[in-house]
């Protein structure tokens, strides 16, 4: 069984505003989207379903009521089933990882796709917790997947650093956290959108999974905007003059070269 983990996040163009008590960000007036990396995971799951003749793809999200919209979008893209782990307030990575792993266990997942990170919290860690709690192998930042004919073993390519790549071999069960560029996610079709509206969505609460808000291992607070930068200098003259002046300033004033 193929599963995809998705998270609902603010659109990348969103101006993030901090709450007055610095306890978090203002969540009203935000345009919510599926985490961009998760769209690649959905597409990869749908492609894999065709390739290995899997019966269905199930999408799972963890979040407040509004997160159901991310599930509807995934259903409209062609995913077959959806599961919502309903939470209130913030959930730390440990608790989210544990909850998702419990759901995947209960639902009999064999292959799980996820995005390499969510662009809101930027932890890039949930996939690792999920894989560890399932006691499965995992490959992260996956740029390419090649399945064997039986659909039980695969080779995944991942970037390491500076352009070096690893080819990782693994068998099923496995968790694959994919990178941008692995595919081109499809758009939701109009019939898909209509069908998605009527689909039943299965729900779990944290309590159903033996967890609570008190399961958190960290406390988060004191949200701050990035420090202001002093106004910069504009360099004038022709290109050669500007270049000469810039190198001088970088050397003598900024002392970075």
């Amino acid at each position, binding site marked *: 069984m193929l599963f995809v983990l998705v998270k609902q996040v603010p659109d990348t163009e969103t101006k993030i505003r901090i709450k007055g008590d610095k306890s978090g960000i203002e969540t009203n007036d935000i345009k919510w989207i599926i985490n961009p990396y998760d769209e690649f995971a959905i597409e990869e799951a749908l492609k894999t379903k065709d390739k290995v003749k899997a019966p269905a793809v199930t999408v799972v999200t963890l979040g407040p009521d509004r997160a159901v919209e991310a599930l509807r979008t995934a259903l409209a893209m062609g995913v077959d089933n959806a599961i919502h782990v309903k939470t209130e307030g913030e959930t730390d990575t440990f608790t989210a990882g544990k909850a998702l792993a419990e759901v995947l266990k209960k639902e009999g997942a064999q292959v799980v796709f996820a995005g390499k990170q969510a662009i809101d919290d930027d932890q890039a860690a949930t996939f690792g917790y999920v894989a560890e709690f399932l006691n499965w192998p995992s490959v992260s930042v996956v740029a390419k997947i090649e399945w064997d004919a039986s659909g039980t073993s695969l080779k995944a390519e991942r970037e390491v650093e500076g352009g070096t790549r690893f080819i990782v071999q693994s068998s099923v069960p496995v968790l694959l956290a994919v990178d941008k560029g692995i595919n081109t996610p499809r758009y939701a079709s109009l019939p898909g959108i209509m069908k998605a509206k009527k689909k039943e969505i299965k729900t779990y609460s944290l309590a159903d999974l033996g967890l609570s808000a008190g399961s958190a291992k*960290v406390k988060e607070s004191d949200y701050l905007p990035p420090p202001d930068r002093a106004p910069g200098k504009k360099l004038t003259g022709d290109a050669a003059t500007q270049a000469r002046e810039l190198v001088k300033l970088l050397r003598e004033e900024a002392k970075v070269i």
Partner: protein
Amino acid sequence: MNIFVIGEAKDGKVKRVTHEILSELKRQGQAATMVLVGGADAEAAAQSAVGMGASKIVVLAHEALTQYSTEGYANALHAYLSTQTPGAILVGATALAKDYLPRLAAKLQVGIASDCTEIKVGSAVTARRPVFAGKVSKQVEFTAMPAVLSVRPNVLPVDAAGGSSPVEKVAANAGEIRAKVVEVKAAASKKVDLTEADIIISGGRSLKNAENFKILQDCADVIGAAVGASRAAVDAGYAPHDMQVGQTGKTVSPKLYIACGISGAIQHLAGMRSSKVIVAIDKNPEAPIFQRADYGIVGDLFEVVPALTEEFKKLKAHS
């Protein structure tokens, strides 16, 4: 509190980010043990780190760890650290650390703070980490020990190397490794990784095509910089995604960031705003990038960048 810094070696040398973390801990009056994981070569790498300020260096060596694997690293570190009553485990936020650290934290049944830009290690452990690609940052306090943190490279200053740390070899337990690296594809050219680069020269859609990125590469080669790209340039097919800087690409923090033909979309600014010095070169004087830049050049990048390359060459010839 027992503090451990997991080192990472590349080409036989322990990376600077490991030294950055050890320097910061020392400034906070904390002694730390460095742990290095690897095969037979790990011991030699440890010798490159004896002056970084660790109270000792523990080498977890095993043949099965010569080649990196997610499970091998997580297993070996867990097997060793769980016998050491660790209070804090810190590591540079490199590509490999981001891969195995969440699994290590899960094994230890604790939380994690990734890519921290400030750390405070004392009787309690707190950290500050940027979220929303740097549009905001937040404080993370660990309520379960050990605290597991990765620290963004190039943010914490390094102190001069000195002194010496004894090196202790410990037989590692790599455990079961199911996902194995079966092939390593080296990069076509030896490139500095963007997230660890000192200097980055990035290009936007104004580069017009992939071939024109060569003028950035020529300039970068002179000063040993890495070349990056904006999302617009990547989406247009001028550069591969592994070069993308921004919210859906890499978050970088070099000493010097030179943006060429990049207007400065909010998601791009988010990914490079923690650079120490920002230079913007763009035709459009109204481009938002200029509000973030320490030095702005309004001009044609096709004239300015080659001129800059020449200036860098002159500088290198003199030094």
